[in-house]
C-alpha cells in the first residue's frame, strides 16, 4: 500500500535555534505497516538523516512517542492502513511539552526528573518491616488489582505531551509522574503513604490537574493517569490532607451539591448562613469564599473578579441560593445519605443492615502475619474470626483456592492433580559417577571456569 505523510524536520542550527521544515514523504509498504515501519522505510531507503527513537516495536519500551495530526501516539502501535485507504496525509511531529532535540526526538530530562521527585521506589517504615518469615509480603489479588493500571505505564511520555495543565505550568508534576506516585500510594506494601501524599500535595502537585482527561484519552497502554490523580486526591481526603486550595475547592463543590450546610470555613468556624447557600444546587458564588477563606476572597483581586463575573452574568447573585430551593431537595439529601451510607457499608464488607463479614480464613491467616486483628478491623472493617491463629506459615497447596483463582479445569490444576509432568523429577535416576570428576579434572585451564565448586564460589 502507498502511505503518504508529512514530517516536521527540525535541525538545531549553530545559534541554538531550529531550522524547521514540513517535508512530504511517500512510502510503498506492506499492509500491516505501522507508522514506525513507514519511518524505518524512509530512513533506510530515502533519507538516512531522519531522527527518531525506537526499540522494541511492540509497545512496551516506550521509545517512539510522537504526534500524528496533533495527537500523541506510539509510532509502533499506529497502523497506517486505514489512513492510507482514506487517502489522508497525516502530519508527524515530536511530542509536546518537551524541548525538541532534533526531528522527532525530544529531551525527556525534565520528564525523568519529575518521576524521580516522586520517590519512586517501595518504602517500608523501617528496614525491619520486611515480612518476618523472610518471604514475600502477603497481598491479596484484590489488593494487587488496585495498582494494575498504573503498573502498566511504560513512561513513553504521551500523556505529558498532551497535558494542558503542564502547558500552563511547566513545573506541574504531570500525569506520568503522578501515576507513578499512585503506584506506591495504592500499594499495600508501601508504608510511606502519608508522607507521599504530603509530598505530592501543594503547588504543582495533585490538585493542579485541570481534569481535561487528555492523558486518559491518549495513553497507549490504558494507564488512565487522570484516574490515578483522582485516586491520589481521594487518598488525601482520607488522610485529612486538605490544605491545598484544590482540595478545598473539591470539598466545597461536593458540600454545595449536598444541600446539607452549614459547612466549616476558615479556621473551622462554620460559615454563617451557609445552610441557606446550600439549597441543593451548585453555588458558584460560595465556591470562591469557601475555597479561599473569607479574608482572602475579600482582597481586591478576588473580590474584583467576583464582581466582574457577577456583572457579566457568569455567576448567580449571592442571594440566589437563599431564594431558590432546588425542587426535590429532600430527595437530593436522601440520595447523599444513601450514597454515604453505602460507601461505609462497602468499606465494612457488607450491607448496612448486616453485621460485618469475617475475612475468608486463608486471607486472614496471611494478613495476620502483618497486621493485628485490631489494625485489620480499623483498615477494612472486617472481623478476623478467633479460631485462626496468627503465624507466618503458608497454606498447604491443597487448601489454596486454585479453582477460584485460575478458573476451573486449567492446566495448573491438571499439573497439580497429576503431580506434574514427571512425577519423580528424575531424581531417582542414575547416581553421579566418576564422569563428573573426570570432567572437573580437565577444566579450569585458564583459571576462570567451570571447576564445579571453586573457591570463588564458597
Amino acid at each position, binding site marked *: 500500500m502507498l502511505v503518504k505523510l508529512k514530517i516536521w524536520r527540525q535541525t538545531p542550527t549553530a545559534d541554538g535555534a531550529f531550522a524547521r521544515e514540513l517535508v512530504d514523504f511517500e512510502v510503498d509498504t506492506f499492509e500491516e505497516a505501522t507508522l514506525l515501519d513507514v519511518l524505518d522505510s524512509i530512513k533506510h531507503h530515502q533519507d538516512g538523516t531522519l531522527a527518531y527513537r525506537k526499540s522494541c516495536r511492540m509497545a512496551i519500551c516506550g521509545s517512539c512517542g510522537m504526534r500524528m495530526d496533533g495527537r500523541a501516539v506510539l509510532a509502533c502501535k499506529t497502523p497506517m492502513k486505514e489512513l492510507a485507504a482514506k487517502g489522508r496525509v497525516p502530519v508527524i511531529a515530536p511530542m509536546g511539552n518537551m524541548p525538541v532535540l532534533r526531528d522527532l526526538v525530544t529531551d525527556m530530562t525534565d520528564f525523568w526528573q519529575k518521576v524521580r521527585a516522586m520517590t519512586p521506589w517501595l518504602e517500608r517504615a523501617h528496614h525491619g518491616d520486611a515480612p518476618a518469615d523472610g518471604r514475600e509480603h502477603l497481598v491479596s489479588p484484590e489488593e494487587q488489582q488496585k495498582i494494575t493500571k498504573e503498573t502498566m505505564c511504560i513512561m513513553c511520555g504521551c500523556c505529558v505531551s498532551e497535558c494542558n495543565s503542564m502547558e500552563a505550568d511547566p513545573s506541574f508534576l504531570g500525569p506520568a509522574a503522578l501515576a507513578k506516585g499512585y503506584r506506591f500510594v495504592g500499594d499495600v506494601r508501601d508504608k510511606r503513604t502519608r508522607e507521599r501524599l504530603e509530598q505530592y500535595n501543594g503547588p504543582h502537585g495533585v490538585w493542579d490537574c485541570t481534569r481535561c482527561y487528555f492523558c486518559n484519552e491518549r495513553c497507549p497502554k490504558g494507564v488512565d493517569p487522570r484516574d490515578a490523580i483522582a485516586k491520589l486526591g481521594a487518598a488525601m481526603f482520607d488522610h485529612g490532607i486538605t490544605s491545598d486550595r484544590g482540595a478545598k475547592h473539591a470539598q466545597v463543590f461536593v458540600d454545595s451539591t449536598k444541600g446539607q450546610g452549614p459547612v466549616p470555613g476558615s479556621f473551622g468556624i462554620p460559615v454563617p448562613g451557609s445552610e441557606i447557600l446550600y439549597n441543593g444546587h451548585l453555588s458558584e458564588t460560595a465556591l470562591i469564599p469557601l475555597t479561599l477563606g473569607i479574608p482572602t476572597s475579600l482582597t481586591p483581586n478576588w473580590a474584583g473578579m467576583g464582581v466582574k463575573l457577577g456583572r457579566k452574568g457568569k455567576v448567580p447573585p449571592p442571594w440566589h441560593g437563599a431564594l431558590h430551593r432546588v425542587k426535590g431537595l429532600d430527595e437530593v439529601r436522601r440520595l447523599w445519605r444513601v450514597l454515604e451510607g453505602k460507601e461505609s457499608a462497602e468499606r465494612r464488607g457488607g450491607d448496612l443492615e448486616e453485621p460485618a463479614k469475617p475475612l475468608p480464613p486463608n486471607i486472614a491467616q496471611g494478613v495476620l502475619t502483618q497486621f493485628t486483628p485490631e489494625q485489620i478491623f480499623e483498615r477494612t472493617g472486617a472481623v478476623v474470626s478467633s479460631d485462626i491463629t496468627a503465624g507466618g506459615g503458608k497454606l498447604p497447596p491443597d*487448601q489454596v483456592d486454585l479453582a477460584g483463582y485460575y478458573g476451573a479445569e486449567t492446566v495448573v490444576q491438571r499439573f497439580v492433580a497429576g503431580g506434574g509432568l514427571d512425577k519423580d523429577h528424575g531424581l531417582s535416576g542414575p547416581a553421579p559417577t566418576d564422569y563428573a570428576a573426570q570432567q572437573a579434572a580437565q577444566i579450569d585451564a585458564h583459571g576462570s571456569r567451570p571447576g564445579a565448586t*571453586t573457591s570463588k564460589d564458597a
Partner: protein
Amino acid sequence: MRVAYVRARGERIERISVIASHDVVIVGAGLAGMRAAVEAARGGVDVAVVTKLHPVRSHSGAAEGGINVALGNVSDDSTEGHTYDTVKGSDYLADQDASRIMCEAAVDDILELENMGCFFSRLPNGRIAQRPFGAAGRPRTAFAADITGHVLLHVMYEQLLKHGVKVYEEFFAIDLVLDDNGECIGVSSWDIKDGGIKTVLGNATVICTGGMGRMYHGTTNAFACTGDGMAMAFRAGAPLKDMEFMQFHPTTLKANGVLITEGCRGEGGVLRNADGERFMKNYAPNAMELASRDVVSRAEWTEIMSGRGVDGCVLLDLTHLGADHINRALPGSRELALDYAGVDAIDEPIPVRPGAHYQMGGVHTDNWGMTPLPGLWASGEAACVSVHGANRLGGNSLLEAVVFGRRSGEHAARTVQGKARPDAAAAAASISKTEAKVAGLLSATGPRADELRESLAETMYANCGVFRTGDSMTEARDTIATLRKTYDEGVLVQDKGSNFNNDLTYAIEVGYLLEMGDVLTRCALEREESRGGHTRLDFVERDDEKWLVHSLTTRTIDDAKINVGTHPVTITDYQPAIRTY
C-alpha cells in the same frame, strides 16, 4: 565534561575524551545490567551504567511470561526439581554446577525482588502465584500477568534511582578500552545526544548488552538487540561460548516477529494445524504444547513444511479459555495479536510461527560472571555461564539475568575494591583507534547498512534456522563472508551530523551483527550433531561421544582470525539421558 590531555607515544600531545573514571562500569541497562549495578553499589564502590537507550527502554521489558523459582506456592516443588528440569531442558549441555547455583539462588533472589516492590500476580492466600511453563515439572513460573519483564525492569530502575547510580544514557558503546597490558579498563561510546567519542573508565567492566536476534528475519528481539557486547568482548579477545545455539520461540507473529508468550500455553492455549488438529500429540504426547521450546518449534516447522500450515503459520487457539480468563491472565497477548495480526484472541486463533528469540551462547564466563579477559565480566543474555546449554527453558532468562547480574556485580565490586582508578593516559591508544573507526565510517561510501542487514537476516532465517544442514550453513557462511567484505570496504552513512545520528550507530550495529552471524554459522557448521536449539538434518542424532562439549570461539586481535574450539561441560548429578516430553 573533563577533557584530558595526555602525552601519547612519541611527543605528540593528544586530546582524548575520557569523561570519568569509576570502580565498576556496566555496559547495558537491562535487567542484568541494572541488577549488577545495584549489587555493585551495595558493595560500596563507585558504579556507573552506560546504555545506548534509557534503562527502561531495554528489551528485558519485553519478556512476558515469567520467572522460574521453586517457591512451592501452588505445588510441592524443590530447587532440585528446578535444577533437573533446567539440565534436561538444556539437552545436558548446561554446566550443572552453574544451573544449580541459579536454581538455588532463585528463591532468595525472587523474594528479594518482591521485597523491592515487584508487582507479582497473587494467589488467594496472598502468596506469589505460579503458572506452568514449558518443560517444567511443576507450575514454577512466577509472573505479573503477561508483563513480567516490564515489571521487573521498572522495579530494578526504581532501585537504580534509589541507590543513586550514575547512568550515561544514550551512550552507544563502540569499543572496550584495553590498556597496554591488554586489560579491560572501560568502554568508549558515541554520545548519541551530542556526538563525539566519550570514554568511561573503570577497573571492572561488566557486559550486559543482551542478545543478537536482529540477525534473523522473524525475530522477537527489539531493534536494539544487535550483539553489541558480545562483539566488543570478542574483538577485545574474550572467547564466546556455544554461539551456535539460537533459540526459536514457537509462538511469534508473522508480520513483525512479536512474541506471544508461552504463558498462553501455560494457561491452557493449544496449537492446531490447518486441519484443526492438535498436532503436538504426534511429537510430545505427554507434555503436548508445554514441551520444551526447541521441540515445539521443530514440530511447528515440520507441520508448516508438510503443507499443514496456514499461510506459513500454525494456529495458537485460546478461544476455549473465555474472555474473562484471557483478559485477566493474558491481556498483553490479546493486545499484541490485535495490533499486529488484526486477530482478537477471544474470538479466533492467532497465527504464529517460530522466530529467533534468545541466544543461549555468549561471552564465556565462570560462575561469577568473570571472563578470561582481565577486568571484564559479563552477565545476562550476552554471557554464557552456561545455565541454558543447548536450549533455554522459558522463565529461566529473567532468572539468569537477576541471579548472575547480582553475582557479577558483587564479584566485580569485591575484586576492584580499593584499587586505584584507571588513568586516562592508559586509554589513549585505544581511544585513538575508536575515533579513527568512527571517522572512517562517516567518510565511507558504499551500500546502505540496512541492505547488508536484510541479506544477513534472510540467509540466517533460511539457512541457519530451526532446521539446518551442512549445505545450508555453508551457503550462509559464504554469503556472510561476502557481506562482511562489502561492509569492510565501506557502507554509506548519510547523516554526517553529531546530534542524534542514529544512522551512524545503526551502521556500527550492522557490523556487530555481521561478525556475530559469522561466528554463529561457523560454530553451527562445526557441531556435527543435533542438540537442543541446533537441529541438523544431516546429523539427526545427539552425539554425546563427540559433542557433549561447549564450543569456544576465539578471535585473534590483530588479524581477526576466528577459531572454533571446544570446552568441557561440567556434569555433576545428572547423566545425559534421552530427552522426551
